[in-house]
């Protein structure tokens, strides 16, 4: 793939941002989703949840203002915005499992056409951490995934059936990749948007499951 085609990770993050709204409560998973934290401004009114126990997470501080008691889910130093609150892990996951988060943004190894999510363990991996991913993905009102469309070896990550161990079944609603935005609907995958430089045929070829293409996108 040429560097001039598709979205960079920062561009994927900006594309996700366009789908968020003022007043949305959003959880950012470790990895690509954490890029969002640096893009948000107070005026947007988007409130970030960090599962270690923060609502109202702000961007990284300058090095001289780092505080070990204010970290994100990836253990990186962050800040609290005005209106923030802190709480223990059971309350934090009550928010997640109880359906109080509007959006959870997660990274993934694979997503199936039925919205199954595999993002915690590679096949055959003996020791892996699951962290909050399983609770987040069963609990949030909308689970959106950010990932590259293909693996480094060129294998599709959007698949008929996940071959990686599952995190949760039937939970993903939308997937943002470097090539496209794809919705998971009750009828299967549906192309929502093409990244610049890619054609429908490119995305279909890079997707290992039937992909519905609405006329508005297929043009």
């Amino acid at each position, binding site marked *: 793939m040429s560097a001039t085609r598709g979205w960079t990770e920062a561009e994927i993050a900006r594309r996700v941002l366009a789908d968020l709204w003022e007043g949305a*409560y959003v959880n950012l998973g470790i990895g690509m989703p954490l890029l969002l934290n640096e893009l948000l401004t107070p005026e947007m009114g988007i409130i970030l949840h960090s599962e270690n126990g923060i609502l109202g997470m702000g961007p990284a501080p300058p090095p001289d203002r780092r505080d070990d008691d204010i970290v994100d889910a990836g253990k990186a130093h962050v800040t609290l915005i005005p*209106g923030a609150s802190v709480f223990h892990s059971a309350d934090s996951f*009550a928010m*997640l499992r109880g359906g109080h988060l509007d959006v959870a943004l997660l990274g993934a190894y694979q997503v199936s056409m039925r919205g199954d999510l595999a993002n915690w363990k590679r096949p055959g991996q003996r020791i892996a951490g699951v962290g909050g991913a399983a609770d987040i993905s*069963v609990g949030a009102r909308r689970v959106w995934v950010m990932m590259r469309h293909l693996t480094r070896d060129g294998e599709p990550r959007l698949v008929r059936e996940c071959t990686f161990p599952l995190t949760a079944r039937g939970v993903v609603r939308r997937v943002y990749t470097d090539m496209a935005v794809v919705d998971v609907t009750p009828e299967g995958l549906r192309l929502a948007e093409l990244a610049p430089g890619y054609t429908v045929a490119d995305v279909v070829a890079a997707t290992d499951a039937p992909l519905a293409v609405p006329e508005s996108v297929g043009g």
Partner: protein
Amino acid sequence: MIDKTVPSLEAAVQGLDDGMVVMVGGFGDSGTPHELLNAVLERGCRDLTIISNNAGDGDRGIAALILHHRVRKVICSFPTTAHNHAVREAVERGEVELELRPQGTLAECIRAGGAGLGGVLTPTGLDTELAEGKPVYELDGRRYVVERPLRADFALVRGWRADRWGNVVYRYAQQNFNPLMAMAGRCTVVQVDHVHEVGEIDPMHVHTPGIFVDRVVRVEREVRR
């Protein structure tokens, strides 16, 4: 700018309609959202299911709703007081259905509802009338009563201070069921004495984070103590 404050008690209970399940915080008079309950009464909805620790007192609060025939069912731990004939009489004449849950079970079931848990496994009430008709689950040789989670269409909560994002601080034992019900309401409405600008409440002092709160209404009250 996110601002969850609403201008009136009437606006605070907008959408609370016939047949809904309504949680009401408070323990006796402490932490009870009396003004919100009055607004529900004025709104005129019927066939309500009320989840609350008590069932009002005299002709006030939930008792007033019962006396005005607005209530179909009450789920609580302690319905009767010396002065509360409303619920007793309504139950006796078959107008109101009463479901009793032990206080700790009630609290935990509300929390489970808000936390997305499937139920509560408790030793409380085991092999007594309090667990009659409820499933029992055995795990590792111990038996537990399975209690169902509780959620509500509306949670009516009384707090002390809130900011415009809905972060709430409760005053002393005003907490009781309020922070739990705030978690379990599809629409959670908090009446408070004071509204603050965002950032004025210390993050470490927040009892109910704003994510659980949909509406905040300030009610003028005389200063106590």
